[in-house]
């Protein structure tokens, strides 16, 4: 299922100017104060008219198209700057390239004031789609740019919702709901010329809902084909491709085909060619690939992409082709692929290496990078990792994940502290019979089963990290846990603890928990 996010930057021109002058004030020292309304102006038949307004100016009733003279009558203090449409588009392009690195390989600027992101299949990088959108929203807002985001199955729907549903957070139209979502929006949300919108309004059409239920023939005759093309795009009946942009300096290779291809074998062969080209370019600039994006351009105009990452820079054509080939099955060729583009979207310096001598061939260590890449691309980069020691008083935080190829850190935990082999994700409450304040339990009941304890050792007293705001300590800054190792009748060994020191209620609830099992 395709998922498209539309990013709307309602005050892009003015936000960009404010941001620019804040960073490098012009020679006159005249920075644009956030309290003074700001508009940009363009010449029009010998007078100047408003091109873009900021939030302050809009609140005063100033709208694009108004003459500057009239605008000044609303707000005498109005700041007016000449519009720079080229710089606006250029800035949009830069944001698109940034988003392309971070969120999705298919990103394009949507001039004059928006972005397209095809986030199909990209959500897993942020665990959920909502998390991805939240991150995108937060980061763009942090640039000082007003932003509205919507995501839907079709580009048209996302575009309409982003611009016509003012919400302080990203709006998600659930898969399949795009028809319902746009039905109530005004006709103008369909990206039509002003003349068509005006004409439809005169006929009594206000909302898209009315348009969906009306016979098409008469309307098409009067308003042309654009109207229903836009409607179909929003409803998902007509394709609306997003043509992705790439940074100029990155190595890339492209192959167009005389006849569309559609079989995995053909893709694999082309990938081999493309990778060979890209590796050649990488070798010349002394870089290695960290991430590859392979675009499949379908005959119906849609673009699909597979993205693979490597854990260490690589220029090994065999390895890179293999990573890409493993993902071919996710490509839906439809009626066929007419061109393929490979872009090395993340590069890192990589020194030239001497070819292997005959002796070294036999006793080389295993190629961990290749294996880790293969696993990471199949199961997700975060799911292939090492566990490294982390200084923490609480046992569940004493092991932290680290990148799979990271071996730089000194590895090791205390050798004399007993730690369980299996740890429960969160401690489970148990019923116990124990003597206060510090005897090991004699009997405990866990998951409805009674365990009679024959021997025990403890307590090992752990104090919570009172400086933390979250976790256990968030609720109880003086948390104490007394840990006991106990052995049951059958010989099984468990790790139990009592929340609290057994005397002072402020250190814990005195309830007992099981936290894991020993060997």
């Amino acid at each position, binding site marked *: 299922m395709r998922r498209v996010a539309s990013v709307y930057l309602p005050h892009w021109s003015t936000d960009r100017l404010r941001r620019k002058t804040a960073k490098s004030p012009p020679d006159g020292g005249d920075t644009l104060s956030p309290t003074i309304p700001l508009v940009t102006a363009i010449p029009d038949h010998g007078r100047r008219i408003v091109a873009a307004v900021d939030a302050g100016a809009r609140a005063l009733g100033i709208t694009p198209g108004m003459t500057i003279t009239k605008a000044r009558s609303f707000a005498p203090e109005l700041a007016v700057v000449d519009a720079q449409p080229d710089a606006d588009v250029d800035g949009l392009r830069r944001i698109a390239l940034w988003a392309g690195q971070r969120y999705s390989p298919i990103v394009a600027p949507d001039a004059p004031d928006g972005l397209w992101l095809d986030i199909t299949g990209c959500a897993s990088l942020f665990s959920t789609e909502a998390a991805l959108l939240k991150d995108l929203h937060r980061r763009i807002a942090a640039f000082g740019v007003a932003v509205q985001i919507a995501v839907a199955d079709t580009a048209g729907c996302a575009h309409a919702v982003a611009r016509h549903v003012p919400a302080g957070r990203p709006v998600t139209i659930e898969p399949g709901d795009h028809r319902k979502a746009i039905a109530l929006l005004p006709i103008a949300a369909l990206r039509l010329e002003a003349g068509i919108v005006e004409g439809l309004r005169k006929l009594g059409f206000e909302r898209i809902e009315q348009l969906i239920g009306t016979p098409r023939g008469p309307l098409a005759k009067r308003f042309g084909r654009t109207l229903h093309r836009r409607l179909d795009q929003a409803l998902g009946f007509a394709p609306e491709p997003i043509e992705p942009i790439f940074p100029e300096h990155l190595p890339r290779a492209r192959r167009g085909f005389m006849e569309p291809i559609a079989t995995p074998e053909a893709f694999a062969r082309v990938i081999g060619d493309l990778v060979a080209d890209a590796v050649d370019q990488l070798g010349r600039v002394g870089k290695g690939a960290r991430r590859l994006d392979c675009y499949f351009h379908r005959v119906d105009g849609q673009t699909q992409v597979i993205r693979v990452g490597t854990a260490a820079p690589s220029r090994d054509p065999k390895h890179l082709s293999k990573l890409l080939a493993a993902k071919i099955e996710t490509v839906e060729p439809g009626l066929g692929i007419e061109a393929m583009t490979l872009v090395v979207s993340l590069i890192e310096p990589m020194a030239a290496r001497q070819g292997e001598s005959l002796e070294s061939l036999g006793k080389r260590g*295993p190629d961990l990078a290749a*294996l880790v890449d293969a696993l990471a691309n*199949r*199961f997700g980069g975060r799911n292939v990792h090492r566990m490294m020691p982390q200084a923490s008083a609480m046992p569940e935080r004493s092991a932290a994940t680290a990148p799979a190829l990271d071996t730089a850190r000194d590895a090791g935990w205390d050798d004399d502290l007993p730690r369980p*082999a*299996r740890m429960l*994700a969160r401690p489970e409450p148990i019923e116990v019979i124990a003597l206060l304040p510090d005897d090991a339990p004699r009997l405990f009941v866990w998951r409805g089963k009674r365990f009679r304890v024959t021997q025990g050792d403890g307590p090992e007293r752990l104090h919570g990290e009172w400086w933390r705001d979250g976790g256990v300590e968030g609720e109880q800054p003086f948390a104490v846990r007394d840990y006991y190792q106990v052995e049951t009748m*059958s010989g099984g060994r468990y790790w139990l603890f009592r929340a609290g020191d057994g005397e002072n209620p402020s250190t814990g609830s005195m309830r007992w928990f099981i936290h894991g099992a020993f060997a």
Partner: protein
Amino acid sequence: MRESVVLQNLRAQIAQIEGAGARHAVVPFGIDAIDQRLPGGGLATGALHEVAGSPDLADDASATIFLAGILARIDGPVFWCLRWRDLFAPALHLAGLRADRVIYVEAGSDANVMLAMEECLRHPGLGGVVGEIGKYSTTASKRLQLAAEGSGVAAFVFRRASKVEQSVEGTAAMTRWRITASPSEDLGIPSLGRPRWQIALERVRGGNPHAWIVEGCDATGRLGLSSALVDRPAAAEDRQVAA
């Protein structure tokens, strides 16, 4: 005497036909009583081994450390494929399997764990590959066994929370073990001695099942056989012969 020589030759021939054990090194436990029961005198690398605990979490924990101890004594990086993260790395460290040697793969499901294992087993030079799964088929065990033979990497399937009756299914694994906790020696003071496990060799290709009671891994991954326990396996053996 003659008979045993014939038998030995036959066993060698079968091993050669099966293509396992003969080509790759073995990892001895360092305890004669166990090693002499295993063809080649130890656990064969380049082969699949099955290890199970029981539905009891403590038994699964014992099986975990049993595996960690074996892997601690093999050189090379170890891939540990999990369904979810309930393994606690510091405990592996205590059994001699250092953190910088293990890479974890959280695959999410049994099918994915097996995919990850197979991918790992195609890479020669690893120390070992562990996959924690609930259920798997005979066919899957054959695939993993073939992959392990090809690369010479020791492969371990750890059947989590496995009930005893589950072990009747066929398998292509070289050995099948069941590890359960056993009461340890009473020290007479409120403290715990070295843990004890019952390790049962339920199935071994080219050998007979057997069970021992051992002391758990030390800091280098070695099992112990205390003098107090030496007699008990012998008694168990007698029972088995009688049966």
